[in-house]
Structures are given as C-alpha cells and as structure tokens.
C-alpha cells in the first residue's frame, strides 16, 4: 500500500477498519524519512518516541477510545515546542534546546492525557526544517541547510514552512503543521504542490509557537487535500486560555461544508452556483510570471464552470503591503527576540568580558544574518525619532489595507489570485539581495496584516514542471467556506494528486 499517497481522510478509515495499525503507518513513514534525507526536510527524528506514541494510539483504537485522527502520523514545524524532540526554530541559538512543555497545537494533536483529555491521538513523526525563526521565503535561512524542492532538487522549497511542505510533497509525512506570518504556509505549499491554509488570526493558539511577529503569526495545516486540511485544522484550533489573543469562537468543524453545494438546491454539476469570486486587478498586474497568470486564470475558469461568478475587485494598497509588513514584522521580531540573552536557555558565547558583552556576543553568534538584519530594522523603526514616520505610519496603512478587503468583500465571497509571482526559484538565486526576496511576498502579506484566512491550492505547473498554487482569501472566520470552495475545485481537478517523478 502506498500510504504516502493516501490522504489522511482515507487513512483514518483504514485505521478504524483495522486494515493497518498506527505502528505500521509510523514505521512506514520513518523508513521513508530515512530514505528521503536528501530533501533535508526534517531537523529532528526520534523513531523510538514516535513508535511509542503509535503503540499507545493503537491501544486507544482497539479499546474504542479513539477519535477521528487517532494513530495518524503528523510532522510539526520546528517552531512548535515539543517535549521529547528538539525545538530549535532552525536557529543555532536554540541548537539542542528541549522544551519542558508542548505547544498547544502539539498537545491538541497529540495523545490524550489526563491534563490534555481532548488530544486527537496523532503520532509525532519529528520536527521539520524552516527558515530561522520563520524569517524567510525560501528556507535558505535555516541554520541547518536549505530544504530542497521535491519537484526539482535544484530549486527552493519556499519558506518559511519549507520542511513541512517538502515532507508532505515527498511523502515523508501524510500531513504537517506550519505557521504563516507573511505567507509561510501558502508560499511553500504552492512551491511544493500541496494544499495549505492560514486561518483567521486568533483561531489557533500561539502558545508554544516560538514567536516571530505576534500580531501576524498564525498556525495552520499543510496537507495533500483541502479535506485533509479541514480535518487537521478542526483538531488544531481551540480557545486557549494561555494565549490572550486566542478567540473564544475557535474550535468548530471546518469540514462541515465540504460536500455541500454553495447554496441549497444547486445541481451537482454546478455546486458553486451563487459563489462570487473576486479577482483583484492588482494581483494580476506587472511582475506576475505568465505561466502563473495562465494557471490562475484557468482555475478561475474552472470555478466558473462549477457555477461561480467572476467579478473584478480592487485591493489598491497591495504593493504597499511589502513596506508595511517589513516595518511591522521586524519591529515585533526585535522585541520578541530580545528574550534570547544566553542566560536561561539558548546559545551562550564561550568568551566575554562582562554581562553586556555576554548578551552581545551570544546573540551575534546565535542569530543568522537574516535574523540579525530584521532585528536591526525593527530596532531602528522603533527608536526615538523614527517611530512616527515608520512604525506608526505602517500601522495606519495597515488599517487601510484591512478596510480595502472589506470593500472588496461587499462585491464577492472569496478572492482569488496567485500565491506568489513565480514558481520556486533556483537555490541561491535571490539570497544575495534581501529586498529581492521580500518582493516575492507581495500577494500573501496583506492577509496577515488584515488577519484574514487564506489558502493555497495546487492549480497547475510551469513550463519547467514546477507546481503553481492559487490563493483563495476569505473574510474573517470563513475557513469552512474557503475549504468548501477548494474541496469542490479538487473534486473537479487533479493538480493536487500529481506527484513529483523523483518521489516514488
């Protein structure tokens, strides 16, 4: 059985029917991880611990105490702290760091315990590679080497959740968690040909998620299908008293609309009748690669064939989302990363003169170049004399960006556009010029600034056979509706089923 090609929705059925055990599935993926080390998708694997969890999952299943996802293996982005596995955020700063507690996402998906009775019973396969502290768009900023794209090993996986994306695409995990601060779930999902969703801000707890930019960070699932993402998001999302920004209206069945038509009474040939899909003209302007534009336009046509109506909308401040984001995110990062001082945990320099020198040397040695750069930018925009011109101005424009979306949603139910201007670029192609890389985030940043849910869905391939993703953006708390649209599209297309030829 090719379990690495099997969506978790079917894996759950096989487990419930006792056609396979969690231990067999876990062993299967651990072997694939070992054979697939060339992608550099994982930073820490512990077969013994995974199999131990799988044995417990099997006993839950045989004693009738399992829930829907019990026994299914999952990989966690290394930004989530986990007991048992190292939690490094792909930084030298946290090399060998082992957390005394599990992130809420990890606990929600993990085995049920007395303290955590609602655990979904999934098995942790290990921790996936990422850009250091989630800062990057190509995974080349990892202190432990870049992740290679399973579709072409000379190309980047995207970032920052590149390890999770490559693990799913290469069949080294059935599904994985990711985080998205400016596109870090959607862009690697697009580059690796998988499906991913960043929920509305506040849906998924940030407790135990190593912080980058707290008002933008949001976790979500990365899987093979919209249905798989809906199942994982349902288990991930909860109202968490340990996160003051966790919303009370979290925790719903995000899969509830998947097999329904958009409006009651539509024919099965036109399940999306009544759906208005907005195409923002700024998302199809200069800078978009032709094959990406063609693929997204073809996806729009496919949605139209399913009954949807296409409408032109405008998000006038799209281009400005880049400077706004690259002021606000570094500002928050400079504050969040001040905790790394070499005192309580993390890297400490071996030689220093005094306490201040110890801070400086530990931080300079522990952080990589991009992280240092963002700390410097953030410190500058928050410093005396620059705060109003940069930080405050960015926050005011952020309000305009959020309001522009509301104006667009008066005319449409979902917004459709590309995830990124181009497909996965060659390793090293953009790493010399940070601004060049920042410009690649143009279509994903605005939804984080506004806190909206958005997803990436495979919709085609470039001339060099690299995957292309379309982006679907919904209004606040409309994840279940977004997933419904994506699921209906995936019933009528097979882009998400394609597998890289290098992945047997």
């Amino acid at each position, binding site marked *: 059985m090719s379990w690495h090609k099997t969506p978790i929705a079917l894996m759950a059925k096989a487990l419930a029917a006792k056609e396979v055990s969690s231990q067999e599935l876990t062993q299967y993926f651990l072997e694939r991880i070992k054979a697939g080390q060339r992608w550099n998708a994982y930073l820490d694997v512990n077969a013994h611990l995974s199999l131990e969890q799988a044995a417990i999952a099997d006993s839950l299943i045989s004693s009738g105490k399992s829930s829907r996802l019990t026994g299914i293996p999952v990989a966690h982005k290394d930004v989530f702290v986990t007991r048992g596995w190292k939690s490094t955020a792909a930084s030298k700063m946290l090399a060998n760091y082992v957390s005394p507690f599990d992130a809420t996402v990890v606990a929600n998906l993990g085995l049920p315990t007395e303290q955590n009775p609602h655990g979904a019973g999934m098995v942790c396969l290990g921790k996936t590679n990422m850009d250091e502290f989630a800062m990057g768009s190509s995974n080349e900023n990892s202190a432990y080497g870049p992740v290679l794209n399973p579709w072409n090993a000379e190309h980047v996986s995207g970032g920052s959740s590149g390890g999770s994306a490559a693990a799913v695409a290469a069949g080294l995990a059935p599904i994985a968690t990711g985080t998205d601060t400016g596109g870090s779930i959607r862009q690697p999902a697009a580059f690796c040909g998988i499906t991913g969703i960043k929920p509305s801000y506040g849906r998924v707890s940030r407790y135990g998620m190593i912080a980058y930019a707290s008002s933008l960070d949001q976790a979500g699932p990365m899987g093979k299908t919209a249905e798989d993402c809906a199942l994982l998001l349902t288990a991930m999302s909860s109202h968490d008293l340990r996160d003051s920004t966790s919303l009370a209206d979290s925790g719903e069945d995000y899969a509830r609309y998947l097999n329904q038509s958009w409006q009651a009474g539509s024919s099965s040939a036109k399940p999306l009748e009544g759906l208005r899909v907005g195409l923002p003209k700024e998302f199809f302007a200069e800078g978009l690669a032709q094959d990406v534009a063609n693929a997204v336009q073809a996806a729009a046509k496919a949605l139209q064939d399913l009954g949807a109506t296409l409408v032109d909308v405008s998000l006038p401040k799209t281009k400005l989302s880049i400077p706004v984001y690259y002021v606000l995110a570094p500002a928050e990062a400079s504050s969040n990363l001040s905790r790394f001082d070499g005192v309580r945990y993390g890297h400490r320099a071996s030689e220093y003169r005094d306490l201040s020198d110890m801070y400086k040397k530990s931080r300079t040695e522990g952080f990589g170049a991009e992280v240092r750069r963002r700390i410097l930018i953030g410190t500058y925009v928050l410093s005396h004399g620059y705060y109003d011109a940069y930080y405050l101005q960015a926050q005011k424009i952020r309000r305009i960006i959020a309001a522009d979306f509301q104006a667009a949603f008066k005319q449409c139910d979902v917004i459709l556009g590309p995830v990124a201007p181009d497909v996965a670029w060659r390793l090293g192609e953009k790493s010399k010029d940070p601004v060049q890389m*920042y410009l690649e985030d143009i279509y994903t940043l605005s939804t984080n600034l506004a806190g909206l849910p958005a997803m990436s869905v495979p919709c085609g391939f470039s001339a060099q056979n690299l995957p292309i993703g379309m982006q679907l953006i919904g209004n606040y708390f409309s994840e279940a509706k977004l997933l419904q649209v994506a699921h209906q599209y995936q019933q009528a297309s097979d882009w998400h089923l394609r597998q890289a030829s290098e992945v047997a």
Partner: protein
Amino acid sequence: MKLDDVQRIAHLSSLDLSQAEAEAVLPQLQAVFSLVAEMQAVDTSGLQPLAHPILFLRDLAQPLRLDQVSETDHRVENMQSAPAQQDGYFLVPRVIE
C-alpha cells in the same frame, strides 16, 4: 541611514557587529529603507493605527483568570537548557564588583 546609525542600532539590539559586518549590512538596510520610504506618500491623517487585526473587528477584552495557583513546580525541567547554573539558579557573570 549611515554607518554610525548601524552601530547605534546594533548596540540597542545587543548585537556586536565588526566594522566589516556593519559596512556589509549598511547597503542592505538602505535598500530596505528606500522600499519603506514608499509609505510616506500615503495620506493617513485622521487614521488610527491598527496594532492588531482583531482590533479591526472588535475591542480586545483582556482575558483574566482566577487568582489561583494553577502551575506546579517545574524548576528542574525549566532549567534543563540553561547554559550555566549553580544551586538551582541561572548563573551569569558578576555584575556588582
């Protein structure tokens, strides 16, 4: 932004940049700030800053918990990744001579 600014913010960031490193990072920061300068053309008079996406939807009530002990002692686990420790305390270089 000038080289002096780089060294000043490096100090504020508790980072230790050599002259060569500061010179290398300066043009990169200048490029970022020329991108950021595009924001200045936007008229934002009368607009409130949006510090947080939820504030766009609703007031963010400060969630409060009951004033009860909820945590047990995790001292040993919490100190397992300390770079230096002694007698159950985090060890730092002497600060008072």
